[in-house]
């Protein structure tokens, strides 16, 4: 029996690493756009896109701010590019307790790329507009989605099973009960 699948619009910015030469215009445009009022201040520390640059080794990597990480990961991965070793943090898009990147410099609040949602909407996000090297490519596509309810149920189970594995089912139940009681109080 075929169900009617829902469709959702997915917007992404694809990065062509061969083309990026690290000029950081994307950072300037993003930061300026997101200031209040718009364009009233420029501060790349507030940019939702940051370019990791190691110019003499020809490494230029734009990274767009993603989901906030409550805790540091172990950070043990490294990458060797053109013979030089780089830690994984350089390529990670998470606002994270281990560093200042992707956080407002004054408040510390995490930044997240919102594809320049605006009213009226922009044709393309600011970083894509200002990247004249064509290293940032804006893509809009439709994707089918599974029923929301089913998905939520699946996700919840998966998450709980993971935590049960990590902390033990007893500890998990104990913690949930304690939290529920605290809420009621």
């Amino acid at each position, binding site marked *: 029996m075929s169900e009617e699948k829902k469709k959702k619009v997915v917007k992404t910015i694809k990065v062509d690493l061969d083309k990026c*030469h690290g000029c950081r215009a994307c950072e300037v445009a993003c930061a300026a756009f997101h200031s209040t009022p*718009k*364009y009233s*201040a420029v501060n790349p*520390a507030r940019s939702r896109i940051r370019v*990791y640059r190691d*110019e003499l080794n*020809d490494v230029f990597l734009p990274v767009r701010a993603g989901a906030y990480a409550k805790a540091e990961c172990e950070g043990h991965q490294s990458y060797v590019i053109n013979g030089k070793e780089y830690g994984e943090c350089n390529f990670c898009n998470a606002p994270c307790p281990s560093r200042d990147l992707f956080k407002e410099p004054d408040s510390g609040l995490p930044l997240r790329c919102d594809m320049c949602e605006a009213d009226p909407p922009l044709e393309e996000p600011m970083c894509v507009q200002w990247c*004249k090297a064509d290293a940032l490519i804006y893509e809009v596509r439709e994707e089918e989605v599974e029923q929301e309810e089913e998905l939520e149920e699946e996700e919840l189970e998966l998450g709980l099973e993971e935590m049960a594995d990590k902390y033990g089912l007893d500890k998990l139940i104990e913690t949930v009960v304690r939290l529920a009681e605290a809420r009621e109080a």
Partner: protein
Amino acid sequence: MRYAETGFNLEIDLSTGNIERVPSDPQDTELYLGGVGTNYKILWDRVPPEIEPFSADNIIIFSAGLLGGTMAPGANRTIITSISPQTLFTGFSILGGYWAPQLKYAGFDKIIVRGKSPDLVYIWIDNDKVEIRDASHLKGKSTYETTRLIREELDQPYPEVLAIGLAGENRVYFASVESATSSASRLGMGAIMGDKNLKAIAVRGTKDINIARPEVFMDQCNKVLDYIQYRLENPIPGVPAILSFIGSPQEMALHDEKWHTISFSWGNARIRRKDFWNEEVAREWEQTMESARKKLISCYNCPVRCRAIVQVPGYPSYTMKCFSKLTYVMAAMADDLDFGFKIASIAQSHGVDGFTAPQVMAFAVELYEAGVLTEEDLPGFPSENRERFYYLLDKIVKREGIGDVLADGVYWAARKIGKGAEAYDHNTIKKHEQIPIKLGMLNPIYYIMWSTGEKANITQIEGQLPQAPLPKDIREEFVKDWIQIPTGKEEKFKKFILEWGEEGKTFPFWPPPDLICELVEWQENMHYIDDSLGLCAGLSSFPLKPPYHMHNLPVLVSAGAGIEMDEDRLWETSIRVRNLVRASNVRRGMRRKDDKPPEDHWKKRFPDYEAKLLDEYYSYRGWNKEGIPTKQTLQKLGLDFVYEDFVKRGILEE
């Protein structure tokens, strides 16, 4: 609230270790904008002409421009100002790259350094935290190593670093200040840093720069970006390829070096090789560059990509742009582009000026061939010219043996060496080495620019105009969309292009002096605007039909900085800055006798006519016969304090 600028300067006294954050006067912004303009106001106020370059009382200023770090494309320049150890006049040397915007984001418009540190140090600026740190472990290290080590030590991926190499530490008079992607090469600013025992400055900032009228400013920036794209897709027809785009001459992108190799001089600015460029050379050089060049890159917030990452096996990776691709090759009379990439790697890592160093070395070779320098002066001197250049470079940066004499540059070296060496100093102006070009017929426009340009560097006064008459069928097209001409001069300047090359309308006696003055004034004023705003001349004063010009710069300044600005006022401001720079040099003894190109700069010279031209230009600029700004000129520009000082010193009569 201050707009575009931060409103603060960082004052550092290396003798005492004192560090202060000092608010600047907004009035100075209105009068001098920023960058070179406000640098010179500070220099005028604090460094009287008796101060020598290597005195602790000499200051060195590292400045962003008024628009530095804003959204304006190419607003990334660092303007370094001090007294030049070579010319003994003032000097302002400029680099691009990524450093100045970080200084602004850290909350400073300038760093003003005075005194001398007892030990080798570097300065670290992290927003409000400013430290003078031990640099003894960086002594002798290359400019690139220094950057890498400082970044590692500070455990920050993002600080931008300015550094000197061995040449600066040893006070070579043509030592440069290098950042990973750019170089402030001319007039020996690296030597001043070395003299103050300042190895490097690292900076990182996370503060806002405010924009006064955001929508208007951003709109102009978008229009500038659009025009940049338009110019990159539409090179100017009828001029050599290398001059047809924007940015620096695109030597890292283009293989065709015919114009440079046949127009400029080889050796010690001695020989012109009109038959040099042929298919074989073209093919060889294309291969060499394709293999050495890893990627074309830009400076901060600029799409043009004038620079390239250069990696030659066995040599440190570095970045290069523009004419230094050829200066060593041509000075060494080596037909070998590969040599150019190799020696530049070493030269830049030590931090020397890519225009001066090759000429000093070619000068030494000439003296050796003429017997003025001998085996005694140059023990073990190789017989092959490229090897000689490596030898000389090494001696110079270490100030070893004859290197200690050559490290002062051609002018001083010639006088120290004596024995007729002076005759071989034939390519300096104001004791500073010039681009090696010796042409046939006097070019009256360039005569004025070579003579009077305060930077003593032709590339920092010229621009806007083709360098030869355009082909007849191209001229109409050229003038049709020539939007950059200042208001009121459109007809005059277009007529110049349309007529140039016709019967009776060629050098040396055409164009008429009054038109020459206006053409020179336009070219030069635009450079002073760029150097005050911190804009790259490659997008503005230097190329043909640039994105920045008198019809958008005023609104960028007013919308960015929140000061009232229109075309007339910006024009006047550029003239004020220009006169302040001249006055600073006059105060240090510069006069008419210094305003002259080398004797052999053209084969055909006309001394009487040249003298008449110089008179007319001085008069046009409002200067007396000695090239000193007159009372009327100074007072009209609000430079009364200059006039008063001149009277006190007997430079002008009351």
